[in-house]
């Protein structure tokens, strides 16, 4: 299964793809597009990737998790224009043991954020545009009514 998708993510379908009669626990994580970033109202945003590397790095992360815990992992990151509330990333980890499922799921999302070459370009309500840089300190949101 490719790890990048230009179509909306379907959690139910991803869960079904790893459901097996000997797997008792499925942990999932969905990362959703939020309506604010650094105190600015987000109007639109677009994810882009260095696609061949993003596929390869995602496959490495999944393989690492599956080698470390007895589980099967599905990871899909969405690319292109997304709307507020859309799922940007889905991780599903299925295992006979819920501990393995939780640990694998958490591992994968943390590694995705640290390693997979994907970028986010946000357009704000005031018309400005910016590349999101998680390494920069984010300005606190303006005080309400201040």
């Amino acid at each position, binding site marked *: 299964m490719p790890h990048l998708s230009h179509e909306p993510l379907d959690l139910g379908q991803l869960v079904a793809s790893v459901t097996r009669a000997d797997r008792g626990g499925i942990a999932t994580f969905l*990362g959703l597009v939020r309506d604010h970033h650094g105190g600015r109202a987000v109007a639109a945003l677009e*994810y*882009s*990737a*260095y696609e*061949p*590397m*993003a596929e*390869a*790095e995602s496959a490495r992360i999944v393989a690492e998790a599956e080698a470390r815990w007895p589980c099967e992992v599905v990871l899909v*990151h969405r690319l292109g224009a997304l709307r507020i509330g859309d799922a*940007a*990333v889905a991780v599903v980890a299925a295992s006979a043991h819920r501990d393995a499922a939780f640990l694998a799921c958490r591992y994968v*999302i943390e590694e*995705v*954020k*640290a*390693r*997979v*070459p*994907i*970028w*986010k*370009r946000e357009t704000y309500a005031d018309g400005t545009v910016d*590349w*999101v*840089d*998680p*390494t*920069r300190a984010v300005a606190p949101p303006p005080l309400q009514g201040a």
Partner: protein
Amino acid sequence: MTPPTGGTIPVRILLFARYAELLGRDHLDVALAVPASVADAVAHVRALPGGEVLPARPLCAVNHAHAPLEAVLHAGDELALLPPLAGG
């Protein structure tokens, strides 16, 4: 290490997201004197007009895998300069 005599290697350098925007291009093909490290290639790009806006130590990947600045480049390698990642 004994410096080689005269040779160069072709390397494709890819730029993404903010870096592509800053330099107005998404790739360039360069010939680097051997031995060439990732750091050498980064220095090459930063010496181009406008290239000084790139950080001196950007996140880099060679052939679709993360690589340290000290990694040695080979002929035909694809080097990518990666702005801060924002997936997930």
